[in-house]
């Protein structure tokens, strides 16, 4: 049987030839993402903003009366709600953010939720309530805080591990690549104003995991080649390492993509954001492993000596003693 080969046996693509332009691009992406996050803000879902979100199905209608619902809920006086189609034309999600003055009132979110549901159910008796979530301002604040802590600790934790397993330059390179990945993921959510919920934090941690997986595979090969080809210039060696792992990178990304796509297309609507973020992360992570994590090593002065045990003071003393003999 002839086996499928996605990548030819011998590739020699000069990935790192354009490392400067790509580095600049990465910086632009990082900065642009943060500008977007800071100016546009993230579209917080109930988890992080507080307030209430209800999912309803209009069973006897083809399409949900989105405009009517918006007007109806707005009439309650909690500001303008977000009314979105959710998975099917007759399914909607209605989100009412917590008014700023109700942030401190613990029961406010629940009360808003009750009023919204009662109102819509009385106006449309045939509607089916599929799910309802209310989160008070205090709990939302805790979720935001925990999310930031989890992301920072995860990035630092894995960078530390790589530092221990490889060398400090590798730890810094990986950390920088992760910073890029997380920033761009946040930027995408800010620019497209996709709903940012607890699930997305899970997705970003999955992206961190996946991107690092890629980085480690490339780094592992770099370490191996550094020991093998002591005289090869570093840029050339990095290119070689990336090329050697290219078949694996393509194959893994592709399998993960074919596993994720059905979930994106046919999966539950409430998982869409999470799966979308992970899918985007697949590309971001692969890019950053090749164009950020690897060239960072050049700039931080990794040499073939990095993995040779360094000569310590004791060694020198010993040599000296031997020389004197």
């Amino acid at each position, binding site marked *: 049987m002839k086996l499928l080969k996605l990548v030819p046996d011998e590739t020699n693509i000069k990935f790192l030839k354009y490392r400067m332009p790509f580095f600049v691009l990465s910086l632009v992406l990082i900065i642009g993402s943060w500008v977007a996050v800071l100016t546009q803000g993230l579209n917080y879902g109930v988890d992080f903003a507080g307030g209430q979100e209800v999912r309803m199905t209009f069973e006897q209608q083809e399409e949900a009366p989105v405009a009517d619902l918006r007007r109806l809920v707005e009439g309650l006086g909690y500001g303008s709600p977000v009314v979105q189609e959710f998975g099917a034309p007759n399914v909607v999600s209605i989100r009412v953010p917590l008014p700023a003055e109700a942030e401190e009132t613990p029961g406010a979110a629940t009360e808003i939720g009750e009023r919204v549901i009662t109102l819509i159910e009385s106006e449309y008796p045939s509607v089916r309530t599929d799910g309802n979530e209310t989160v008070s301002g205090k709990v939302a604040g805790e979720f935001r805080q925990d999310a930031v802590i989890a992301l920072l600790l995860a990035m630092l934790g894995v960078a530390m591990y790589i530092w221990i397993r490889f060398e400090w330059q590798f730890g810094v390179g990986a950390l920088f690549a992760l910073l890029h990945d997380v920033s761009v993921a946040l930027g995408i959510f800010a620019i497209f104003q996709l709903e940012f919920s607890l699930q997305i934090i899970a997705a970003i941690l999955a992206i961190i995991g996946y991107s690092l997986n890629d980085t480690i595979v490339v780094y592992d090969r770099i370490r191996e080649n550094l020991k093998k080809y002591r005289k090869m210039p570093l840029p050339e060696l990095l290119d070689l390492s990336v090329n050697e792992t290219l078949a694996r990178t393509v194959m893994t990304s592709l399998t993960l993509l074919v*596993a994720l796509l059905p979930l994106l297309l046919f999966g539950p609507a409430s998982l869409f954001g999470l799966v979308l973020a992970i899918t985007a992360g697949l590309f971001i992570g692969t890019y950053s492993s090749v164009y950020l994590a690897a060239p960072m090593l050049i700039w931080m002065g990794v040499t073939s000596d990095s993995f040779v045990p360094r000569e310590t003071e004791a060694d020198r003393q010993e040599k000296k003693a031997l020389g004197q003999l």
Partner: protein
Amino acid sequence: MLDFPLWKKISLWAITLAAVFAALPSLITTTGAEWPDALPEPTVNLGLDLAGGSHLLLEAESEEVAAQRLENMEEAVRSAMRQAEPRIRIGDISTANGRLSFMLDDPADIDRARGILEPMMQGPNLVREWDLRVVDTQRMVLIPTQGGTANAVNDAMESATEVVRRRIDELGTREPTIIRQGDTRIVVQVPGLEDPEALKNLLGQTAQLEFKLVDEAALPTNVQAGIAPPGSQIFPFAAGSDFEGQSVAVKRLGGIRGDSLTGAQSGIDPQTNENVVNIQFDQQGGQKFAQLSTRNVGKQFAIILDGEVLSTPVFREPILGGAAQISGSFTADSANNLAISLRSGALPVPLTVIEERTVSAELGKDSIERGLLAMLIGSLAVIALMIATYGRFGIYATIALVFNVLMLLGIMAVLNTTLTLPGIAGFVLTIGAAVDANVLINERIREERKRGRRVVAAVENGYAEASRAIYDANITNFIAGVLLFLFGTGPVRGFAVVLVIGLFTSVFTAVTLTRMWVADYLRAKRPTDINV
């Protein structure tokens, strides 16, 4: 590397089959079939987002506990001073700023007063619950200690959790989960409950029932202006009661609480045709109530529920039987709710719902179906890609993949973890991670072959060299997963659980099991060339 002695093979298969066997109950019950009762039955719990149900996070207002404690202490101090021989006279009592302070009329009483109060400052287990200070020779100040307040809050939360459990049991819902979280929170999860309105009403009612004498000397104009006479306090009438919108002044002390009841039933008063709640005091409460009513025949008293006055009847005669009737414009539902709440005891502290998540069973079922369908399509695509790319080695990877999913499910069942909607995405990522291990290994074997190594050496090297990166990648993912578990909540935790357990099963199946099968193949066929 390719050496597998018999004992090793047997133990690997034993581990694999044990985990797969543990997954059977979960698999069989999802198809709707019955699992034989005689066999052990650890199944994966479905999270509320898949099974349908309500999740409520309740928070106690702990300041209320402190306030209540201060009030109790005031009453205790008053009665202790009154009962001292000879009586110690005190005045200018204040509970401002969270501390109790009062003046002794005669500074000479200071040592006697201290002697009486000192034992009251100590809680159980020799914990000092109050600090006693003397200011300006005749003013005594009682300050609650931090430990004392923490103890009181803790006790209140313990009994609040118990009360919540009793109230939910009264609703007859099945298998609720009720656990304390942190210092002042309680998580309530009720599978299958789609309309938590009744539950929320029930839990939102503190059901602190009080009977207090109306201060008949208070000037109505002052009362309406919110100015309470000394020793009295003002309560508003409850919405729906006869005097809605008005207030009444009642004597602060000397009333009794309705927390010593043996029963409470809703009913209808045959004379007025009103919805009422009939209550029975326990023996002690009955005596107190008898005393109160005997001493105050002809006087008006207020029935106060959670800080609102339901009605202000008059004691027409001493009530000695320990039974009383509460009326106050109830509907049949609200009378029934109050009866349940009173039966299950008053909440020692008011609870507020600060987070609520409800999912209908229908939506949950739909999520599972769509999730499984997507997983199935995805797995088939991955399998096709793997076999097309790596041939025989792809088939090994595929079989490992099937075992991986089954083992993951089995271990989750044994550890009694919960599968949530994001957990389904976790399954897909685990499949990806497992396949990545096989891709790394197989690509490495290809490379080693290209460099001209013989088959056995190439396979050995492939596994050895690829394992390094696989372990490093899995350990870093483990770090990220554990952090997600520690800082995540609810459904997101379910994602972390699948991810972390999946790391172990995928290394086991994708690296160890496939190596055993490849070794068997190489030994049996001794191929001189492999198609990889």
